[in-house]
């Protein structure tokens, strides 16, 4: 309906503006040119990275701009499983961290967001203020104390140490609270009269209605954890190679090549491999990515 109305408005604008038709189409061509130029700028690094990841080292060095690998080789990808790099294990760790954090964060943030929106208990506002306050803390300021706390809890260089500090995020609680506040209360009331406990109401009645924010939260949590570097660097440390996720493992590849020629084929293959899962998720759930980023912007 709204779109229809806009479509009708467009010719009216032009008529009112009085610009000649040829000028309008010239402007349109110009717009497309700019947009395609930028699309190329955003895509080109990935395209060249993919093409070169299938080339041999001499070909990468001499003929990087050629998009067709000749000879075609999987050597760079195979190298990821040998030597200093233990990509299969790092991939497993990345999946483990991202998986556990995502499930935990979605559950705990919904639970807390629901309580803050729907259950009245003394101190609720203070709790919400505390949650909001933690959103204001710049993460980098927490590097040192987090290290100290993990050390005190004997959690340095352990899986729980990698997971617990990022298991909950204030933005997630905020997002879910906002959503649950927008739900009509009648259905919950009916369930309550039927004798359902608060958890049953949350789990069986309210949560199933929250598909959209849950998907957004899931994507954000997975993406954030999959791409996280700094926290893992602090929590897992420079020696616990077997616990490293992909980000930390691949970030150290450059250091491993000190004194010798950097192995760019290896870098590119690793980067493509790390990007692949995010690209797949992005293509499938694109709508939610874009919607949630715009949504959070409007809310901000």
């Amino acid at each position, binding site marked *: 309906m709204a779109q229809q109305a806009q479509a009708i408005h467009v010719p009216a604008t032009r008529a*009112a503006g009085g610009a000649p038709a040829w000028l309008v189409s010239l402007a349109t061509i110009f717009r497309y040119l700019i947009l395609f130029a*930028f699309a190329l700028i955003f895509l080109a690094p990935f395209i*060249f990275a993919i093409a070169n990841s299938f080339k041999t080292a001499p070909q990468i060095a001499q003929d990087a701009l050629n998009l067709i690998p000749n000879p075609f080789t999987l050597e760079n990808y195979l190298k990821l499983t040998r030597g200093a790099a233990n990509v299969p294990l790092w991939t497993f760790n990345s999946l483990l961290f991202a998986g556990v954090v995502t499930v935990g964060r979605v559950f705990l943030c919904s*639970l807390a967001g629901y309580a803050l929106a729907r259950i009245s208990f003394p101190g609720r506002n203070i709790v919400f203020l505390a949650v909001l306050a933690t959103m204001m803390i710049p993460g980098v300021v927490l590097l040192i*104390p987090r290290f100290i706390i993990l050390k005190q809890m004997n959690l340095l260089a352990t899986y729980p140490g990698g997971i617990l500090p990022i298991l909950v995020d204030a933005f997630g609680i905020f997002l879910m609270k906002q959503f649950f506040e927008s739900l009509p209360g009648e259905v919950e009331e009916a369930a309550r009269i039927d004798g359902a406990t608060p958890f049953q109401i949350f789990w069986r009645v309210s949560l199933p209605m929250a598909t959209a924010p849950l998907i957004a939260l899931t994507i954000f949590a997975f993406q954030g954890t*999959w791409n996280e570097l700094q926290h893992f660097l602090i929590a897992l440390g420079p020696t616990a190679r077997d616990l490293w996720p992909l980000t930390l493992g691949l970030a150290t590849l450059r250091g491993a090549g000190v004194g010798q020629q950097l192995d760019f084929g290896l870098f590119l293959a690793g*980067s493509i491999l790390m990007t692949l899962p995010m690209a797949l998720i992005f293509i499938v759930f694109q709508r939610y990515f874009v919607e949630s980023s715009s949504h959070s*912007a409007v809310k901000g």
Partner: protein
Amino acid sequence: MATTNIAGQRRQELIAGYSFVAPALIILLVFLFIPMFFTLWMSFRDWSGITPPAESGAVGLQWYERLLVLDNVRRTDFFTAFKNTFYYALGVVPTQTVLALLLAVIANQQLLRFKGFFRTTFYFPSITSSVAIGLIFLWIYQSGGILNQVIKAVNPAYRNISWMNDPTGIIHNTLAVFGLTLRTAPAWLTETNVLGLTLWQWLSGPSVTMTALMMLVIWTTAGTMMLVFLAALQDIPRPLYEAASVDGATSVQQFFSITVPMLRPTIFFVVTLGLIGTFQVFDQMFVMTSGGPAGTTTSLAYLIYRAGFNDSQMGLASAISVLLFLIIFTATLIQRRIFSDRAVA
């Protein structure tokens, strides 16, 4: 009967409320809230990170004195990192905001084709991990890399820039074109020492390598910010533009008198996010430069990491953290001030 039922229900609600909130709250308190104050406490102590923290010695304001007042290497390091980070934010935030806004306005057209394609390509860099992008650009930026090859193809006279290994400041380099170099510059510029750096060092701008990192980050984030602007643009009522064009306003006039004022909250949001993000920049330095060449890409966040984990000076690192927090806080306040001033004008 009914009252006990209600009382029972209330108690049930109370228990439910606390137990629903408890797990999330405990984690936030332990790993976010308490650490904040811990940083402050630790900044008054001398701790290597190895012995139990309670055994660390109290040093009062010593770290702050060394970072801000006394002429020593810590102060030079801190203000070098401050300078680096400041130029970085100054270059990245306005550029990415303006670029994103212009792209959004260009793309904001009802009849635009290939919408899905543009959306996907513009957004894609921002979902990719900074490590993957860092490694790919390390390759693109190398001396014989494809960026230099492409520029050379366009301009045969171009001499390869060593993007990842050039510590010279870009303002310094620009001045050299006009004949103003360290040798020809007046002594007050090259010899006045302000907080451990000469005036010349302060004014020489971000290094070429830092500029390369800035371009990379703009490339990564501009697309996302464009989508944020695009969403906000759709909310501006069309009749405003129609009325303006009936009155004969050109598209440029419409842009400055309708689009920009209507987008003010969104611009504010994008700039705030940009500031908070750029002042914390770390990943690119860790993956690509290790803070070099010649310390010109050492950001404040990277300095914290280095002080704490390479030099085992947790107290010093905490003091820098506290200062960084204050810097970010001040930057957002100033920014807020600028925006509200414009509202009055």
